């Protein structure tokens, strides 16, 4: 494992175009493979609706465009502007609570007249950037007051977003920040303490939850209790995946999906369509592609030349993992229903663009390194 992460020498000729375009061939290969796979599943889940597929293609185009754009930005520049980006993001989060648009019962959008904007998306990147920026010139592992400040940098936006309420996003942002601390060497003792605190804090959290959030937790613990309502999602997605078996029912032949048993089959529950139509085999292929992307991202982080790049890169890679595990855990009934898409497979645009911007940063960190004399 350590040799894999250590391989800093690469083929010189391949490095040339990668450096000019500031792209990383391996990571790009993983992302393109993943998106292609996703389009196949989406086409089936949408019942052969080519309009929907076309819209998703446009969004993918925008997302890859964003990746390319972000990859051109030098990490030093990003680091320099980090506190400003974070500050603006925080201000917008407060603004959203005061004047934001209400959609589906939650306040998430800011309407600037010509464009609607979700500040919490921005914070998915701004929080790990900020924590990495703060720790970049400190002695690691962080302790005492520094740790408290870093913690506050994470907790404030997380609470603001949880209040909107958007549990899924606040969870993602919280873990993005947490992974920076973890990668910076946060001591295991403290981690254990935090875990205990979380266990103790659960009842308090329960008190602050919205009814629909509580309902999700209850439904998670006992889905059969409400088969017509919230539990319906989980029951149906388990049937879809379970009936898929080893090799699935075949592309476009998932009865659960096509007879409309499976809700949200193009968005949050698309993993169940994959499980039904391609079986365990298809899922393992998808997980391998995901793993490839994560490992390559971590590898890029370890090769970064400064603390900021290392911590940010590593956190982005692990946040990507959290996306996957929370979504798949939800669809397979391991975790409560939290509204998070399956990255680059689910239909939908905003979070995809943010994710790709993150991968753009990773590529930028990798390709803007100063070449060491050989």
């Amino acid at each position: 494992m350590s040799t894999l992460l250590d391989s800093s020498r690469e083929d010189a000729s391949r490095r040339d175009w990668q450096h000019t375009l500031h792209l990383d061939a391996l990571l790009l290969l993983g992302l393109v493979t993943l998106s292609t796979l996703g389009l196949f599943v989406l086409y089936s889940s949408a019942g052969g609706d080519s309009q929907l597929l076309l819209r998703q293609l446009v969004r993918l185009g925008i997302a890859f465009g964003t990746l390319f754009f972000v990859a051109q930005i030098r990490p030093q520049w990003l680091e320099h502007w980090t506190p400003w980006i974070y500050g603006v993001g925080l201000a917008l989060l407060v603004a959203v609570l005061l004047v934001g648009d209400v959609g589906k019962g939650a306040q998430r959008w800011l309407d600037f007249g010509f464009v609607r904007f979700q500040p919490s998306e921005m914070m998915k990147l701004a929080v790990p950037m900020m924590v990495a920026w703060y720790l970049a010139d400190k002695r690691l592992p962080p302790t005492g007051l520094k740790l408290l400040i870093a913690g506050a940098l994470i907790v404030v936006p997380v609470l603001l977003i949880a209040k909107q309420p958007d549990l899924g996003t606040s969870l993602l942002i919280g873990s993005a920040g947490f992974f920076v601390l973890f990668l910076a060497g946060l001591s295991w003792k403290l981690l254990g303490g935090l875990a205990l605190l979380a266990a103790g804090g659960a009842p308090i959290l329960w008190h602050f939850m919205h009814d629909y959030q509580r309902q999700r937790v209850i439904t998670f613990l006992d889905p059969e209790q409400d088969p017509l309502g919230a539990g319906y999602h989980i029951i149906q997605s388990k049937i879809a995946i379970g009936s898929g078996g080893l090799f699935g029912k075949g592309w476009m032949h998932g009865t659960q999906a096509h007879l409309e048993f499976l809700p949200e089959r193009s968005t949050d529950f698309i993993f169940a369509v994959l499980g039904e139509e391609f079986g365990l085999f298809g899922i393992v292929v998808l997980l391998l592609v995901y793993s490839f992307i994560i490992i390559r991202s971590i590898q890029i982080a370890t090769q970064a030349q400064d603390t900021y790049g290392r911590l940010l890169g590593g956190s982005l890679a692990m946040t990507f993992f959290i996306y996957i595990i929370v979504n798949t855990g939800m669809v397979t009934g391991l975790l409560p229903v939290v509204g998070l898409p399956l990255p680059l497979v689910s239909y939908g645009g905003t979070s995809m663009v943010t994710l790709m911007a993150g991968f753009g940063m990773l590529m930028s960190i990798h390709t803007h390194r100063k070449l060491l004399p050989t």
Partner: protein
Amino acid sequence: MARPVTIKDYLYESHLFMQRAIQALIIAGLLFAVLVGRLVYLQVVAHEHFITLSDDNRIKILPLPPNRGLIFDRNGLILADNLPSYRLEITREQIHDLDATLAELGKLIDIRDVDLKRFRRLRQRTPSFKPVPLRFHLSDEEVARFAINRHRFPGVDIVAGLSRHYPHGPLAAHAIGYVGRIDERDLQNVDGSNYSGTTHIGKVGIEKTYEDLLHGSVGYRQVETNAEGRILRTLTRIPPVPGENLYLTLDAELQSAAEQAFEGKAGAAIVIDPANGDVLAFVSLPSYDPNLFVNGIDVDSYKALRDDPQRPLFNRALRGQYPPGSTLKPFVALGGLEQGITTAHAHTYCPGFYQLPGKARKYRDWKRWGHGTVDLVSAIAQSCDVYFYDLALSMGIDRLHEFLSLFGFGQRTGIDIKGELPGLLPSREWKRATHNQPWFPGETLIAGIGQGFVLSTPIQLASATATLSQYGRRLRPRIVAATQTHEDGELTPRPVETILDIPVEDRQHWTTVIHAMREVVQGRHGTARKISKGAWYEIAGKTGTAQVFGLKKEEKYDASKLSKELHDHSLFIAFAPVDKPRVAVAVVVEHGGSGSAVAAPIARKIMDHYLKKPSP
């Protein structure tokens, strides 16, 4: 930003990061392993169990849409009904060759071009596994013919349902409105799950305003189906709660009489019971047949309605903003009395024109040679403009605006039909804000006779008239009198709501103005004296003629030389009987000419119908 210099052990930190990165990857790997374990359980160990659940494909939950509430007039006559109807639906996914199927169907059932056009439009917005309606209102014969040939058409179904029907067609269509097929925009404003299974939603009028009550709550049916999805039996059933019925304040007979009184002219009339604000008739003409909209109007019919120069889709009663003209005069006069600016006995000489002090411009009276010496009562009865130029100037725009606001001019009346417009009661601030100009005294003059910037809607005029007849009690006009749930059939009356009790300085002032309005109709020189003939009750009214365009200084209005669109609007407001008002009316006839000749006789016919002649 100055950053403190910290001594960092880069080698150590890089090593630490490497260690942590590997630990993170191990944790991720373990979690993936748990996930795969779960999948192995679901897809391998418990596969048989889930395949049974899925293969049986048994239990489906079907929404049971509630029946829409009915709409009745005040006497229980039905205005909006639900009729059983059969529609033909096509599920594309189950069809091999759509064109061939449509061609074959055409041999059995009459499918017109408009049906095909609508079908193509709808199918683009519907996923292929959902049924798309092709024809509505199949005849019994067509249903029978299809039933025999059913086996030849997999994926084609006849669905029985209820369809909204307006038995009186265009009668009061602008008040009742209509339902239409739900589109995506509608769904954003309602609870989606409550509308699963619902195909139609109120689009305008009462149907839209009372959508929540009329719709009801959805029910569910748990059914067992076979592999093709055909229903075998019902397991459980949660019945829907039907929408509530509405009883309107409208009197369909009066409404019909009022519409006929217009004899094909375009305009609007509102009839209000001044005691409680009940809208007895709501006329906006020309009208349209709301039944056309229920299942999607075809393009040609819609174009015809939209491009009709008479604008039948325009709700004149609620959204028509007309200069009130001389109908504003009684209110201005009352303002002059109540604010102590004039008295009932003060005289003004009318030479046929008026000039602002020191200005050359002549503001003309409608009567070229003038009314001679007039007081308040004769000025209203003969509609003398000069008297009101003078009074308006003494009041000034600020007091004029303040007093007329009390009657609701320039504001929505708040009637329970969506889409009302507020009209316009100008003020100094308004002029500054919209025109960025100061207010000129000349504008006060013409505002005093209801011209210039002043605009009001027919509903507003009727409400103000009713308020005047009640000595200042301003009620919110209402069109739904009561709601009725299905369970107990009990009627729940909607409350009569007082918006404002206008403070009364001296009741005698109000009596004077009402007396003057009585003179308009009953007096020897009243502008509407012709309509008093043969009436078995006394009417208080005021004529109005609203200019559509301004005349030049010395020009004379000559209807014969003008095209119809430039003819004056004809207005009349009235209430009756004078001593115990039971009905208040506002009539506007677009381009009808003078108020006395056109609008007043219509109002008389409406009141005749309502205040039925006592049998001798």
